């Protein structure tokens, strides 16, 4: 595998890692506050549909993004009602939310667009209907290629290795990709350097202590679940308006669960989450390039193995063979005040 092929795969890996990263950080907020969330998948899917649908209807992707976040928060509130207010089983609620999103998106898509449960392609709705690629200054992009009158691939091939990394890997992503990377330090700061973060983490470890200190457990948990909704909304919006141009049925295709896997892999820490998501994104990108993988390792690895690798890795981690993943202590349990 030559350097440029590696860069191309890495570029794809970054784009695949971003929805995982948003969803993973979403799960991080929720689970650190003691609310298990296996409904990441469903929230992402709902956000993907509503962002694409509203972007198609208004021609403005930013309104689409807001709609996606709104849909995701609505599902978060259902999860909050079930698991915080009514002290139900958080896992069952998550399962229900996944199915609710899977069904409702297709139902509404069919009703609105009559295209067999998908939205029309966003590229037909003007330049503002989806997140376009940003060219960073001094990077070689389509404009430079046009000016030079040569195909982009040749220009990049002839550039220096530094310029190759800059143009191929770092430049040319949509804005949500850069926002996603910024979310990592932001999440770290909020969770580990603010009063809110300390309380949020405390409520996931020992809610009774937080309650004794006079801080509302219910309020904190709802806040965490709402943040989870916002981040899942961005994950879904990126899927439908950044990575692809429109919504198709079941387009999240298990990404919410891979994000969950990444969260465990990262042991519920923001920076580790970034590396875990990049790793899983890289695995997904490699599954798309079996030729390059075969040249690299000299044996024929079935693509299905690469597909399954994130899940296998997670099971290995969960089994405690490579370091132990310890979840927040009060995770999954509703808080009952009077005992």
């Amino acid at each position, binding site marked *: 595998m030559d350097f440029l092929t590696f860069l191309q795969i890495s570029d794809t890996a970054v784009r695949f890692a971003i929805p995982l990263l948003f969803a993973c950080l979403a799960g991080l907020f929720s689970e650190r506050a003691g609310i298990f969330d*296996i409904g990441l998948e469903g929230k992402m899917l709902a956000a993907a549909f509503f962002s694409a649908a509203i972007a198609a209807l208004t021609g403005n992707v930013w309104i689409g993004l807001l709609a996606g976040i709104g849909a995701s928060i609505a599902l978060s509130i*259902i999860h909050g*009602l*079930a*698991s915080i207010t*009514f*002290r*139900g*089983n*958080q*896992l*069952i*609620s998550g*399962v*229900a*939310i*996944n*199915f*609710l999103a*899977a*069904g*409702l998106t*297709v*139902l*509404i898509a*069919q*009703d609105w667009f*009559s295209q067999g*449960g998908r939205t029309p392609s966003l590229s037909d709705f003007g330049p503002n209907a989806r997140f376009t690629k940003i060219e960073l200054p001094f990077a070689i992009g389509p404009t430079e290629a046009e000016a030079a009158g040569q195909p982009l691939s040749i220009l990049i091939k002839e550039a220096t290795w530094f310029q190759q990394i800059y143009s191929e890997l770092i430049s040319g992503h949509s804005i949500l990709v850069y926002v996603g990377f910024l979310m990592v330090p932001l999440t770290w700061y909020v969770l580990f350097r603010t009063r809110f973060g300390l309380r949020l983490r405390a409520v996931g470890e020992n809610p009774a202590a937080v309650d004794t200190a006079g801080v509302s457990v219910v309020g904190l948990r709802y806040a965490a679940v709402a943040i989870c909704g916002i981040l899942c909304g961005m994950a879904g919006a990126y899927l439908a308006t950044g990575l692809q141009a429109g919504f198709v049925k079941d387009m999240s295709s*298990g990404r919410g*669960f891979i994000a*969950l*896997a990444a969260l*465990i892999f990262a042991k519920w820490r923001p920076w580790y989450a970034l590396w875990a998501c990049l790793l899983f994104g890289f695995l997904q990108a490699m599954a798309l390039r079996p030729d390059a993988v075969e040249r690299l390792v000299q044996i024929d690895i*079935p693509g*299905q*193995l690469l*597909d*399954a690798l994130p*899940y*296998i890795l*997670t*099971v290995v981690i*969960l*089994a*405690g063979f490579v370091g132990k993943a310890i*979840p927040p202590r009060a995770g999954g349990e509703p808080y009952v005040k009077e005992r």
Partner: protein
Amino acid sequence: MDVIPKWADALLIPLISILIAFAISAGVIVAIGEDPVAALNTMVTGALGSSYGWGYTLYYATNFIFTGLAVAVAFHARMFNIGGEGQAMLGGVGVALVCLFIPFPHWILALPVALIGGALFGAAWAAIPAYLQAKRGSHIVITTIMFNFIAGSLLVFLLVEVLKPAGAMDPATAKFPEGTHLPTFQDMFSFGEKPAFRGAPANVTFFIALLSCFAVWLLIWRTRLGYAIRAYGHSEPAALYAGISPTKIIMIAMLISGGLSGMMAINAVMGEAERLVLNSVEGAGFIGIAVALMGRSHPLGVLLAALLFGFLYQGGAELSLWTNVPRELIVVIQALVILFTGALDNMVRMPLEKLFLLFRRKAPEAATTVAKPAE
């Protein structure tokens, strides 16, 4: 002290929950511009109006009985087995291997062997998460989810690279030999001129599903092992104190659960498709969750819930055939049933408890006021 009488806990709460779920589903149908009454009509005629419809309804119900029982048995040990989907896929592999590679003269012989094959493979797929939960404390929900995806990839690999007959295009095994053909309802119940259940996939497996319901009831409420499973599910420390080994209970409950999921393949793979295809499970593993929650983990409840979901599944297919309502309506209904009978259970229970307390408090008061004048 129980606040709510037993009959209300077993019947009233699930009934109210399901009514809420159905009311919202009707609202969804109205919201997408269709008439819920007409939709229900289409569903009832499509699923129950003919022996053909019944044949499909009972076929789906058979799948859901197996997966529902699987989830229910795990629930009794307080394990949430989301892995029914993957376990049923692997069960399909087991059934396919048995049917393809052992030459059976007659289905009477093929059925028990295939049953064992499916159950063994399903149980084996549940065994790893169970072992990790019992010995290493890995959360069974997460591991079974992961195992669903791993099973999916494994199945694709097996069908594309190993089991696909040479020269075939679609990822599926060869057709099973004649000796493994299970009698369908059409074969069994067509007397006289006109064939009943014509072309419908319901087959003899339905009766095995009914037997399984009875067997699970026997196991859970009439055996020492069932008692141990329930004891462990109610309180782990108490079970430990009574000398019940948690490892053993987790393993056994999950093996039975996986085995039941795997047995679903008898119906779907051996009875209907007669070869192993990629999506033979069709989400039945997940519907098992809704079925078990709705049936309150009791075999009789599971049976009734599975019949209801069989009706919904077949009715939904008819609905998407004749109207503009996609099949996904069933997924929405399924989600709402899981939500209201599972996660939002307390939303119905809390007000009901208050209501019952109110009546209970009033009753003795009334008794004393009557008694006073007599004094």
